[in-house]
């Protein structure tokens, strides 16, 4: 059926005759040293309707195995000769040609008759002769009939010619490695999608495209705060849809760039090249990009900025708010404010959560004696109180079948969170000495709370040892399951944390994302915004959307002068040192001084130095180091700064700033690059290219709620000097009382007065 549908699609594509295809392409990662000819599929393979087209020399996209989730490639050995990788196709693409570009190497003494069998979705697509020594990595290209590719695909590799019985895995025997830079190369034509609102979020977001979601935000002129509020809603919406892939949301004033774009026009705004319908209320429309036939424009329209916001809210809501067709009036329904921590993307913390809510049964299963890790990804609020009393119980059920092939006493389940192993559970109770092996099927373990971050990956690895009764058939059928009814329970853990903490901001948009609808967020923009400022703003908002998995519709955008109206909110300041006046205004509070467009940190006063004596936890760094770093270059820097709001003790401020607007943008984009995120910590982060420095300079403040008893212990737990003084004072005082009282008593007793 699927093949037929694809064939139909293909023919449609042919009819459309979409000649030139400027889809995002790039050259293959590593050109092959020497391309070996692959043996064509065996005769048993159902013959395709036409021989696969010659693969084009350029203009194709490479999806490396690394990108597809096999970060370390594959190593096929005796006893474990199979592996595979998954790939999904964009919905608006028609694949014209596909091939596997494999980079292979093997060990010395590899069997000469060994072959690598490749299957796609269960159908064999080719065999590669991999016998003999192949110490140098060698590239092999294997053409794939595009007809065989469905929406979701699995490519399987099986090494033939070595022992397959997985009861006897031989880690030290011959091996064949498939490098992670191996790739699936796809040449495709893009399908023309209709200008229809009913397919939203297509074409702006495609869930199967692993690349960043890219769309320009177009404004008729320099946008007002109210217009930015509307744009912010759309940005969080895109962010929530983009998820881990991230976004790229450049801004444009008065001109339409190529590619997909979101256009905000109110009242009589006009844009060159676009025929704008007159909006009589909140309206959205989708139309062709006049400067790029492969791009679409999403028009967000209205009589004024308020209408734009309404329209944006409708977009974010989706469903019935927008009617099908090219143009639709928007009638969003009213929604109540979301309470704090009621965040769709975060693990619910009012009840134990079953694993079945977080992963499919298949994702919770691994196979064989050398299983893949079972991974459960989940996001949580980052501010769980991760201190001594906290416990995050995992109630685990697990089993392996068939048990007879496994030496349960010697096997174990290793559990890690975020790459940190914290517990191994034996698969059988007792040891060989004390008790016979009784299979262990459930256990409650506690996740050490300090290992938890906002984004978490819980990893289960079944470390399996075959039993003497192991046979090939049983081993081939061996599966290990983490039961979907296992639970993780955050409900016993309060929210309480020391701030400022930019790591929370970078990883989870915290504290802004506490309210998923951003109803406690205000963004303070420069009085005159540049496109870079707006992009920084939009991408920050998208970050919040990604963190919450929800389109926040209630964020406020204000100019510095109006900050008093949003004193009850957490503040996100955007703009360079010279364009964001609050940075200078609040320097008495932050100790950050801006002079001649340059940032400097004021040395702490004597009083502050005295206070620091009693700040044992989160000690503040030396301001001299920071100033030295700032002065070490004249090329300027980007800065991310967190501190307590001067307007409200319970609220926080994060400033995305820098020497100029370009640095501001660069800083906001640091937050999108996974590998740099770990460097973002503490409360002042400075960056210059790849040089990212984190400093702790701000006064600490705690947010959240814990019991009085816990608060008392928490508060004194970082005060060794105070506690020592308490001890000395109490002993001195009690000792003095005892000295006087006992002395009197002793005298009386020696006088025989106790008659």
């Amino acid at each position, binding site marked *: 059926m699927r093949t037929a549908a694809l064939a139909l699609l293909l023919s449609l594509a042919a009819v459309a005759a979409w000649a030139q295809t400027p889809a995002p392409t790039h050259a293959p990662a590593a050109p092959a040293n020497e391309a070996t000819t692959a043996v064509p599929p065996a005769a048993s393979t159902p013959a395709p309707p036409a021989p696969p087209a010659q693969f084009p020399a350029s203009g194709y996209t490479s999806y490396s195995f690394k990108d597809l989730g096999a970060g370390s490639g594959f190593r096929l050995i005796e006893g474990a000769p199979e592996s595979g990788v998954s790939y999904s196709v964009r919905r608006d693409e028609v694949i014209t040609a596909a091939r596997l570009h494999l980079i292979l190497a093997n060990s010395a003494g590899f069997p000469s008759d060994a072959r690598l069998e490749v299957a796609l979705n269960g159908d064999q697509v080719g065999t590669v002769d991999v016998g003999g020594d192949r110490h140098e990595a060698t590239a092999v290209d294997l053409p794939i009939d595009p007809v065989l590719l469905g929406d979701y695909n699995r490519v399987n590799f099986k090494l033939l010619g070595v022992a397959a019985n997985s009861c006897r895995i031989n880690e030290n025997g011959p091996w064949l490695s498939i490098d992670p830079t191996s790739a699936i190369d796809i040449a495709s034509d893009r399908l023309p999608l209709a200008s229809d609102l009913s397919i939203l979020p297509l074409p702006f977001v495609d869930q199967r495209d692993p690349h960043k979601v890219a769309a320009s935000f177009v404004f008729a002129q320099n946008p007002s705060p109210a217009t930015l509020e509307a744009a912010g809603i759309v940005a969080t919406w895109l962010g929530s849809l983009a998820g881990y892939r991230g976004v790229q949301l450049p801004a444009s004033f008065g001109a339409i760039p190529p590619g997909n774009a979101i256009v905000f026009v109110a009242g009589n705004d006009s844009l060159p090249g676009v025929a704008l319908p007159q909006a009589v209320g909140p309206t959205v429309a989708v139309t062709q990009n006049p400067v790029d036939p492969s791009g679409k424009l999403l028009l967000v329209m209205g009589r004024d900025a308020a209408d734009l916001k309404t329209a944006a809210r409708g977009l974010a809501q989706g469903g019935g708010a927008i009617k099908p067709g090219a143009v639709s009036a928007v009638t969003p329904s009213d929604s109540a404010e979301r309470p704090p921590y009621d965040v769709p993307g975060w693990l619910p913390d009012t009840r134990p959560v079953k694993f079945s809510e977080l992963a499919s049964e298949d994702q919770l299963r691994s196979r064989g004696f050398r299983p893949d890790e079972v991974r459960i990804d989940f996001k949580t609020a980052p501010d769980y109180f991760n201190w001594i009393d906290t416990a995050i119980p995992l109630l685990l059920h697990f089993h392996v079948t068939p048990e007879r092939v496994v030496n349960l006493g010697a096997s174990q389940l290793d559990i890690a969170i975020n790459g940190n192993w914290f517990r191994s559970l034996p698969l059988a109770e007792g040891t060989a000495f004390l008790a016979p092996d009784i299979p262990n099927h459930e256990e409650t373990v506690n996740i050490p709370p300090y290992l938890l971050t906002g984004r978490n990956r819980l990893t289960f690895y079944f470390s399996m040892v075959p039993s003497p009764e192991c046979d090939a058939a049983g081993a081939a059928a061996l599966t290990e399951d983490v039961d979907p009814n296992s639970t993780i329970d955050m409900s016993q853990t309060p929210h309480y944390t020391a701030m400022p903490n930019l790591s929370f901001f970078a990883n989870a948009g915290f504290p802004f994302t506490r309210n998923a609808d951003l109803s406690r967020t205000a963004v303070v923009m420069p009085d005159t915004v540049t496109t870079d400022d707006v992009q920084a703003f939009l991408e920050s908002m998208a970050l919040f959307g990604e963190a919450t998995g929800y389109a926040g519709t209630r964020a406020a955008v204000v100019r510095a002068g109006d900050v008093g109206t949003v004193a009850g909110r957490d503040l996100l300041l955007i703009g360079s040192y010279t364009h964001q006046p609050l940075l200078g205004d609040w320097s008495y509070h932050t100790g950050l001084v801006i002079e001649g467009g340059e940032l400097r940190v004021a040395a702490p006063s004597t009083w502050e130095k005295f206070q620091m004596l009693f700040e044992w936890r989160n000690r503040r760094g030396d301001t001299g180091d920071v100033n030295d770093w700032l002065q070490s270059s004249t090329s300027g820097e980007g800065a991310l700064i967190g501190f307590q709001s001067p307007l409200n003790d319970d609220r926080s401020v994060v400033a995305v700033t820098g020497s100029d607007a370009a640095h501001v943008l660069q800083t906001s984009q640091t937050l999108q690059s996974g590998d740099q995120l770990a460097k973002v910590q503490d409360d002042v982060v400075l960056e210059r290219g790849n040089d990212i420095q984190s400093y702790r300079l701000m006064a600490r403040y705690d947010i959240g709620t814990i019991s009085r008893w816990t608060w008392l212990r928490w508060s004194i*737990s970082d005060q060794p000097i105070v506690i020592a003084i308490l*001890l000395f004072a109490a002993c001195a005082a009690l*000792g003095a009382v005892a000295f006087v009282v*006992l002395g009197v008593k*002793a005298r009386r*007793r020696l006088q025989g007065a106790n008659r």
Partner: protein
Amino acid sequence: MSAVAEAPQPITREPETPPREARRSRVSPGFIVIILLSVVMLALVAIAPMGLEEQALFAIGTCATLLVMRRFANRYLVLAMSLMSVAVSMRYIFWRITQTTDFQSPLEGFLGWVLLGSEIYALLVLAFGYVQTAWPLHRRPVPMPDDVRLWPTVDVFIPTFNEPLSIVRDTIFSAMSMDYPRDKLKVWCLDDGRRAEFRRFCESVGCGYISRPDNKHAKAGNLNNALQRTHSDLIAFFDCDHVPTRSFLQMTVGWLIREARLAVVQTPHHFYSPDPFERNLKIEHQVPPEGRLFYGLVQDGNDFWNATFFCGSCAVVRRKALDSIGGFATETVTEDAHTALKMHRAGWNSAYLDIPLAAGLATERFAIHVGQRMRWARGMIQIFRLDNPMFGRGLSFGQRVCYTNAMAHFLFALPRVVFLLAPLAYLILNINIIRTSAFLLVAYAGPHLFHTLITNAYVQGKYRHSFWNEIYETSLAFHLLIPTMRTLVAPRSGSGFNVTSKGGLVDKDYFDTKLLRPHIVVCVALVAGIVCGILRWWWGVPIDVKSVILINLAWATFSLMVMLAVLSVGRERRQVRRSVRIDAELPATIFLPDGRQTGAWTLNLSKGGGAFRLEDATLGDHADKVVVRLPCGSQDALFPATVVGGGGGILRISFAPLTLEEEQLLVSAILGRGDAWTGWEYGPIEGPFRSLTRVLRVGLGTVGAAVRRRDGAEK
């Protein structure tokens, strides 16, 4: 006895007020505020949960402060040091309970809680101990009234069961020689052995003799029987080997005359022969003997709280107090302490005089020592269960603490064994019974142990050196473990009174293998654990595991060191002399048969003979028969003797066979002098570090001896 009736009666006026300490010391409201504030502050100190760095800083700060305080220590600072020690230990225990008990298996949890329970016990005993010894009273004697008619009549009870007459006769002689009006003093030998030899001896020296047809209630029954048959105001008790000095009654009775509600005046039990520890470990006069802590510090500290208890001997008791509680307690095997407790409950007071006024023989062999302590332990735990001093009626706060601690002390066996063996859980079984990182454990346990060690070394330094507590307790722990636990569960079970035998001789060196079997097993286990630990270290383990191994290795090594020292106690060394020789410098005169004489000073003296340094050195070589004049109280006495050696101004003599009268005089000359035992050398105060090296030397000595013996056997 009849003389008493004619004497004026008002020895002390009976108070009209109730016997309870009427005037409770009132504490002012200001003090109460300070106390409450301080308690809150200390509670904060105890609960503050710090991380490694913070706790390390806190630990260093408190330990350094303690060292400074010790340097300037006075009575006030010692009180503050004790409070600090308890506070720091409370902090440790609170941390242990709240943060190190995340056990991951039932076995681990069981062992972990047993260890933690032992630590909590140790902390309780530590805190009670500080209270008990907060203010040693250093009571001095009260002079006797000038009017002898006001002196009360005194019976002296010397109970005996199976001890040889050769031992008991010295005691009887000395008791009869005490300075007291003859008509107010009567000495009674209470012979539960019903021996004709004793009856004849008593008749011949003029001592009262009481026996009874049965041995019901053992010693307590014997004493109660005698109580019914005598009538004096006061009774002095001496175990049959405790020889009193002449001044005993002069020093003790004064307090009983002054205070009408005073029931007991207790004095220390002093031993002039070395106990098994002193003899077998060769530490006599270098390390204070085992009993010194109790009689030098604890009883004196108890006295402050009016909680000194009667120890069965070397004490004077008011008959009226005994009568008021129906005589000696017979429910438990330690009748003395139980009787004292009952008197305290009835509102009577007690007093303690830390002046050695009687001396006796220490237990000869370790095996006997073990048997004696087993009885004490069982008895005290019986009282703890049957008549609990912490919760029963009629006691003051201090009395409750002191009595409870005296009894809780004897529960040491289980915790002591647990502490010894705990490191093996990790080294051999690979079980983590303290669930935390090694560094954190050091940061928390470090100040706890340091404060305990330093503060105790200061408080107890004169009476017990650091680490000797471990040796004394460990040596007994294995044998006490089961009897004490059984008694704790079923206090009425078990056998009755066993008499501690004394006066025997160890005629050759031997190792008491049978008695020390558990110790040897534990030593072997500890060595095995240490070897396991070292092997695992070499195995190539990560640093955090190495740190755990290191801690457990250090712990096991300390345990092993203590165990080796304890093993030495079982190496019984030969005892040669039958009559104990006393080193004393007394003025004497030596008369030669030819009429010449010279002044002399005794170098040592025993009932068999003695050595003298002659003032006229030339006279020593000229005779084989001499007569010696020695001071015996107010008079001097002459003793014929044979010269057995000498030269260079030294004369060694052996006394000729003496008459009973002469023997009584000689005993009072040797053992009955009022100052006989004052200035006894207990050994200099030793710091913890030097004490540790001594323990180490003792332990290594055992290893050396074992190796030598093995070599000898092979040859």
